[in-house]
């Protein structure tokens, strides 16, 4: 009897706490936005510029998020090393870019520059795919039927291994991507104030993601992947090679992450051994936000997270007089992460894939 009452008290306490939590967040967002907008600290042009930035970084998150979402959909595991696959792609792109720069191809003309970037993306994709296959083979495949935390810990191990391997190979310094002059010029897009490189990032990522979406939805292999995500056993009975579907999933996710690495390098111009972790976690947030296992959701989630992260600190926090709000952009992103995981773990568009780990 006594225990039951305690149970009820904790339940009520948690409910009260959760509602307070929600109320505080909503209050911060609403009041903060109102205060910021009323103060007139930022002009509409500023806001549009922030939105442009948010779209750029959001489309990179979306590309990484696809890898998380597809792997989670099919294996029910968080591929913690995915951020490092992205980092590997960024480095591969960097070394290719340096080689192309020395050959003069990168800056010769717009056409040869674009071809060079395409080559960089292809090389980065190849390297990332190689890395992902190696990780899947050594760190994940032996653990496919283990309890949930076991593959996750192994994935954390793989992530550390890749990070510090990159540090050993390339040193702890920061590498600067060679700058491509025509990409740094402003693009003729009204209001958003984007450079050509941002346009390239958005266009390239959406082209690739669109292609992926069609591939998953229309092609035979894509159907097989979706079938295996839905139910491994039944899919196997229908003659689908589950192992192959899983490997293809890793390949696609890694290819997109590699391409995202190059786009990140072009846009932010810096690559270093530890660059994969934070974008990786944010992309995971984006994947959960859109509904894990849901391909369209990951794209939407990525864009949304990018926008929130760039616009959020200024919009919600500067109204309260918080000094240097952009310092807190990761706080906004990670708060978003916690909020989504707590209040809507099934995401905006809903989860896809098997209910439990096969």
């Amino acid at each position, binding site marked *: 009897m006594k225990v039951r009452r305690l149970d009820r008290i*904790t339940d009520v306490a948690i409910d009260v706490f959760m509602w307070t939590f929600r109320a505080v967040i909503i209050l911060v967002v609403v009041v903060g936005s109102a205060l910021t907008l009323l103060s007139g600290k930022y002009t509409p042009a500023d806001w549009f510029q922030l939105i442009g930035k948010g779209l750029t970084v959001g489309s990179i998150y979306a590309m990484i998020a696809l890898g998380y979402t597809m792997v989670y959909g099919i294996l029910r595991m968080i591929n913690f090393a995915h951020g490092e696959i992205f980092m590997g792609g960024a480095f591969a792109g960097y070394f290719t870019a340096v080689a192309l720069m020395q050959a003069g191809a990168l800056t010769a003309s717009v056409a040869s520059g674009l071809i060079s970037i395409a080559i960089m993306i292809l090389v980065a994709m190849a390297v990332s795919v190689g890395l992902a296959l190696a990780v899947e083979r050594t760190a994940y495949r032996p653990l496919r039927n283990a309890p*949930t935390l076991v593959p996750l810990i192994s994935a954390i191990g793989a992530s550390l291994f890749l990070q510090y391997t990159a540090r050993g190979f390339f040193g702890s310094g920061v590498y600067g991507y060679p700058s491509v002059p025509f990409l740094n010029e402003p693009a003729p897009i009204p209001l958003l104030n984007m450079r050509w490189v941002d346009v390239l990032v958005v266009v390239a990522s959406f082209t690739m993601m669109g292609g992926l979406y069609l591939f998953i939805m229309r092609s035979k292999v894509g159907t097989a992947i979706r079938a295996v995500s839905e139910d491994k056993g039944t899919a196997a009975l229908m003659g689908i090679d589950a192992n192959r579907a899983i490997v293809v999933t890793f390949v696609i996710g890694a290819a997109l992450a590699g391409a995202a690495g190059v786009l990140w390098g072009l846009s932010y111009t810096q690559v270093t051994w530890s660059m994969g972790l934070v974008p990786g976690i944010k992309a995971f947030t984006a994947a959960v936000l859109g509904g894990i296992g849901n391909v369209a959701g990951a794209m939407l989630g990525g864009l949304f997270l990018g926008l929130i992260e760039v616009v959020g600190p200024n919009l919600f926090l500067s109204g309260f007089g918080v000094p240097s709000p952009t310092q807190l952009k990761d706080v906004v992103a990670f708060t978003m992460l916690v909020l989504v995981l707590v209040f809507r773990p099934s995401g905006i568009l809903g989860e896809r894939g098997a209910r439990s780990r096969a």
Partner: protein
Amino acid sequence: MTASTIQVTGMTESASSSWHLRSFLRTGVLGGVISIYLCLVGIVPVFADRALIVGVIELGQAALLIAFGAVGYLAARDQVGVSRVRAVAAGTAVGAISGTFLTGLVLVGSVVDLRAVFLNASPELYALLTNGQGTSWAWFPILVGAITGGLAGVVAVLPAGLRSMVLVSLGSLLFFGLFAGLLRTPLLVTPLAGPARFLLAADGLTVPGAILVFFGTVAIIAVVRRTKPRQRVNALPKAQRRLVTGPAAILLLAVILLFPLAMGSFFAQVIAIVALFILLGLGLNITLGLAGLLDLGFVAFYAVGAYTVALLTSPGEFGLAQLTFWQAVPFAVIFAMGFAIFLGLPILRIRGDYLAIATLGFGEIIRILVGSDLLKKSLGGPQGILNIPKPIEVATTHWLAGPTQIYYLALAFAVVVAFVSWRLRGSRMGRSWMAIREDEDVAEGMGVNLVQTKLLAYMMGGAFAGLAGAISVALIGSVFPTSIQLQLSINVVAIVVVGGMGSIPGVVLGALVLIGLPELFREFSDYRFLFYGIALMAVMIYRPEGLLPSKIATRELHTADELAEMDDADLLAPEEITQGSAP
């Protein structure tokens, strides 16, 4: 060629007498890839100056030899059933194949500038691989690989007793080679300075030292095998057994207590850090090991403990109360607990893998907030809080000065915490934790209140971490946002996972190996997390219960057949089982 090597299933007997060319090649390629990796990641060139045995072998070369030897040994073990000559030949061949990869590296490196990509592909590396003779000696690694692989093959065909003796002695050679310099320094001020100089160099063993270590280990193993002290003690009646184990325990205690005084302040510092991580590990052991909640933001509670003590004791501009350390510690623990409730309430209802990421998010939020301009006025921002008083203020010459007192402090707290968590594990609460770790739904069905139980585990873990944070501030004397790192959380996870989830001795071992070794050998610190990564993967794949598992975890993670197998194979398991079954 390939047709003759195809293995036919069901014909294992005849298949094992074939050469297994493919598995053979695979082992060789594995060795080659590993040795190239060791070169390019920097282990070989960076440790090329670090002697293991002075004038004979350096650590960097030893890493390559170990790789060659390991693959040679594997290949030879594969062939031992067939014939001994063939086993040695297999070892030689696989070693040579591995060496070929390094030859390839040297040749490619002489044509292409690999250094544009790999920083470590330096002329020094090539010189090392060719014995300083240039590209014309590119065949040199093949020779070394063949010899090492062949020797490993010889070891592999030795009878089991002799084989383990050689392997253990080689291991102890490596161990003492690494430790020699550290042992030498404190010995030089004692009457043993003469022999210490003779046997130990500033880094590595001298040749006589190496000979002594190798044959000393052989002799010790031989004596132990002949006299079987362990079985004899175990065979004694209980009262007499105590006559042996009692003094042994007292001796161990004395060593633990006198260690920092005997070995000087560097060792005291290292061992204090180890004790601190034991404390953190014991905390996470409750959250992760018992309740199965993977907390990747453990550093948040550590931060709360650290900053609480800093704010309450600091005499500087951020100090609030100027309490003593002892008055501030209870606050640190209580605040960390309260913080755990605050974080735990919203997130503990979400599923296991999401929980890990959510806690990681919390850890990062705390890290950024602490260093941000927003809290700069109260927490000092990137400049941190300085001049935090020591727990026991003594003159710098006093024997309790410096890290020594922190060691005793952390040790005392660790003992208390170990006792608490040991008692908790057997309690009703502990059993509820293990029940929800195994299956939440079933546990709930059996009447375990999930949220309360998880929250309590989270709180206990947080309290221990807060305590560790408080002590660490006293150790360092200051606190900065940079001391709150994701790496710290990962470190603690690695300790608990590698040591054995849910096992208290496992945490101690994990902290000694994963924290103690890298702290002693600062030159390895760059490769510390690389090693953690490999350790996490390897433990999860080959031994998910950890190095020193609790009995329950072993039973859960293996099927009955595997357990039966382990009883035969594992030397530790039968003892544990007989102990467990004896009433």
